[in-house]
């Protein structure tokens, strides 16, 4: 069941797996309301003890095209507490990384800017073959503002991070895999199923430290 307190996301728990869907199609832009919803969801998740895993997707063709820039720029300029406002946005997503249960982003279509930052807060990222990813902030005279610089660099190395963040050039699924930005590339129709199977396969005593080990074991299991 979708929870009526949210306007921009759906949250549904089936078999102890939480399904978070960004529901602002077609591009699933991340608005101020989205970050507020995520803040509410954060409270809810942190108080639910029987959750086993979380999967994040976008409704329709795309994961998300990232922040609604016009709205965000206006909000930051209007407020006296823009730092606090942005920190709140940050922690409305960053809590995912701290959760003791596995979080996976299943990425179809575009996943740009803040949306990629959201995905980078999850422990795993599977994407479909036609996915397009990128950090285009610099081309809008901004920088990635929700931890993306740190996480992109940690995964892809400084040289590649610098290149992709400065040019803002988008990249395809295969490149994302080579960069280490995503962990698996899957046919679009199988993406969500595969992400769910992977989550079910992960051990109950999941530990983030074992991220790479899980991925290697799993890819041997499925013969990839």
């Amino acid at each position: 069941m979708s929870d009526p307190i949210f306007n921009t996301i759906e949250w549904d728990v089936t078999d102890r797996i939480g399904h978070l869907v960004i529901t602002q199609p077609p591009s699933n832009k991340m608005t101020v309301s989205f970050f507020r919803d995520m803040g509410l969801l954060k409270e809810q998740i942190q108080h639910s003890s029987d959750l086993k895993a979380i999967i994040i997707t976008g409704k329709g063709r795309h994961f998300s095209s990232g922040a609604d820039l016009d709205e965000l720029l206006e909000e930051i300029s209007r407020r006296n507490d823009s730092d606090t406002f942005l920190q709140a946005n940050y922690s409305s997503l960053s809590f995912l990384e701290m959760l003791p249960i596995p979080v996976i982003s299943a990425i179809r279509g575009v996943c740009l800017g803040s949306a990629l930052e959201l995905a980078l807060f999850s422990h795993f990222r599977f994407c479909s073959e036609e996915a397009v990813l990128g950090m285009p902030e610099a081309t809008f005279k901004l920088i990635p503002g929700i931890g993306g610089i740190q996480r992109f660099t940690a995964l892809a190395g400084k040289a590649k991070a610098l290149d992709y963040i400065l040019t803002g050039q988008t990249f395809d699924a295969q490149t994302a895999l080579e960069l280490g930005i995503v962990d698996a590339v899957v046919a679009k129709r199988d993406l969500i199923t595969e992400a769910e199977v992977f989550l079910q396969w992960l051990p109950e005593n999941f530990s983030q430290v074992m991220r790479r080990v899980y991925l290697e074991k799993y890819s041997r299991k499925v013969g990839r």
Partner: protein
Amino acid sequence: MNDLIEWRVKEAIGILTINNPPENYLFEPEFVSLPTMKTWTETPNLKGILIQGKGKHFSAGGDLRRLFEMVSNGERLEEKLAAGNAVIDHLIHTNLPLVAAIHGVCFGGGLEIALACDIKIAAENALFATPETGHGLLPGMGGTVRLPATVGKAKSMQLILTGDMISTEEAIRIGLIDVTVPRKEVLSYSFTLLHRMTKNLSSRIIRSVIEALRNSSTLPPDRAIAEETRIFCELAKEEYIRRLAEKESEK
């Protein structure tokens, strides 16, 4: 002394050339005087800096004879090294992307200059080493700090203690360098990369990105994030005003 390092600007990219062939020994730890370096890097609208060696090599590092001469002359070596570090520090804090274009030997102080760069590109035939311990010394211009930050403690320890020379192939395997290209293409590849990364951006945005990127490896995570937020807010406010002005002028 300063003509041992050349500076020119091509399409908003500063090109710093170590010009003391054939080995391109660094005459002093302060391989360029800091005030000179500052005038160079203050070139308006500069978007990146490329560092290369003239002729066959990047640099064989410090001139040891000269170094021991300084000691015997009673010159204050500590101050000299601090001055060298200040130049490297200044380069890093320009917040411009630094690219090392390496061919031939890249030893000691030469490697320490390369290690300060964000992206290291090397010819297939380049050679790398920290030979200082063989001379009763240790890397003295950030090498013991930046080498482990780049290749990890275990590899650094091996390289520094043995002074062993490694090839480009090995250097790329351990993460010391980022890209390898044929000898003849090192400079053009490096320049093109810098140019391609920066040509559509203002110096302001470039410096913001690099600063945030550097913070992620030098500050504790919570402070790096607070800094990122601060920079983002500044840019967002500027961009908002720019967009408003654009809308106004369209009316």
